[in-house]
Each structure stands twice: as C-alpha cells, then as structure tokens.
C-alpha cells in the first residue's frame, strides 16, 4: 500500500475512528469470519506438525517412534482433533467465500444459513473423520 503522510500532531484532527471488535454485537457472520482467519493461522502454524511427522518418517525408525508417541498421546490426540476441526472449518469457510465470489448468498437469510452450516458442518465432519479413524484401526 502507498504511504500516507501522517502529520506530526496526528491527534489534532478529530477523525472518526473505527470502533474496536469488542464494541460490536456478536453475529454469526462476524464470528465465522473471525474463525476463518483464526483457523487459517492455526493451520499455518500447525504445518510444523506435518513437517515433524513426515520428516521423522523420512529420517528413520527411532525419529518416527518419537513423533508417533507424541502424536498418539492424549495431548497429541487432542491437538490433532483441534487441527482436524480447523482444517474442516477453514475448508467450509473457503467454500463459503467461493459462493460469495459468484455473487450469491449475500442476503440475510442465506448468509446466516451458510454461516451456521459452516460451523455445524465442520463439527460434523470432524467427528465423522475421527469415528472413521478409530473404526479402521
């Protein structure tokens, strides 16, 4: 972005300010928008776990055993459960963006329905994935 010249005494101007997040009344669409960003950043950081798993698998049996031990521990499973939810939530949130990109579902009804479906869908897909994961063991 281009630079904006800020005057030395910037407080000399009483410009209107955008209120902070906690001022707004929570709404579904706002919450899901924030969730999309938070899950995106969580997925970003979580790629470190994927790196750990695959690099360990490439390194050798003992490195792999350490990674497997950590990731199948209770804490590990909880983190992976959260990561599963993050990926499904972000994926459905992304699909929601595609719907908007085609100019659809901006009206109040569809907008709210999509926002709720994103959360419900991500929770459902997460549970289904883990049920399947345990079932095939």
């Amino acid at each position: 972005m281009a630079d904006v010249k800020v005057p030395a005494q910037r407080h000399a101007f009483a410009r209107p300010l955008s209120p902070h997040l906690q001022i707004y009344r929570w709404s579904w669409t706002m919450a899901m928008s924030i969730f999309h960003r938070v899950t995106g950043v969580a997925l970003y950081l979580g790629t470190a776990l994927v790196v750990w798993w695959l690099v360990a698998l490439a390194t050798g049996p003992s490195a792999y055993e350490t990674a497997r031990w950590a990731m199948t521990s209770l804490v590990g499973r909880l983190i992976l459960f959260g990561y599963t939810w993050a990926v499904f939530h972000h994926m459905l949130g992304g699909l929601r963006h595609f719907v908007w990109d085609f100019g659809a579902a901006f009206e109040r009804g569809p907008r709210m329905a999509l926002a709720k479906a994103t959360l419900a869908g991500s929770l459902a897909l997460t549970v289904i994935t883990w049920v399947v994961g345990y079932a095939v063991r």
Partner: protein
Amino acid sequence: MSIKPSMRTPLSRVRGLGSAHAGTDHFWLQRVTALSNVPLVLVFIGVVIAAGGRDYEAARAIVSHPAIAICLLLLVVSVCVHMRLGLQIVIEDYVHGHGAKFAATIANTFFAFAVGAALGFAVLKISFGA
C-alpha cells in the same frame, strides 16, 4: 463496446494494471490454491487415517505409493503458496510498523519455503527409499 477517451494506452488497458503495477494476482492465486487445496487436503486426511499411528514400515509403504506421493507433493506446493499469501494479508492487517511489517513479511516467506522444502524432500526421500 465504445471506448471512452482516456490517458491510458491500449496496452495498459489490456494489462489491467494501475500505477501499483500489480493487479488481482494475489487474490486470484489465493482462490486457485484454495480450490486445489480442497481435494488435496481430503486425500491428506485419508493418508493420515490410513498411515497415522501405524508402525514405521507400514507408514512408509503408504506414503511412498506413487499416487499418494504425487498428491502429497501437489498438496505441499498448493498449501505453501496459499498459506504464504494468506498470512501476508493477516500481517498487512495487523502489523503496522514499517520495519516490523517488512520483517514479518520476509519471515512469512522463509517459513513457507522452509515448510515446502522440508515436506517435499521428506516425501521424495520416503518414496525413493534412501
């Protein structure tokens, strides 16, 4: 279509770029990689269900299957491009200091490439069995 009088050259109009010399590439690449992420992430979840928690040999056999390894390599490229673009937006929204923004943007690029190189190398090494 009638063309209104304009100071812009026909070439500049075709390119659709303004004075920033950049257009919608960032947005577009974010969407394209979002789209490719969907099937690739689903494959990855399947791989984790199949291989996660298995012993070393079994996990290697699954990851090194050509069809799976190729999908994983595509996933690495798609996700690393996507997450770098995505985090850049987040940085631009929240990090305002000139130096801090500069540093964070570069750190973001380094992280994305490091993750990409590590994962790509790991998948290839597992596949070629060295």
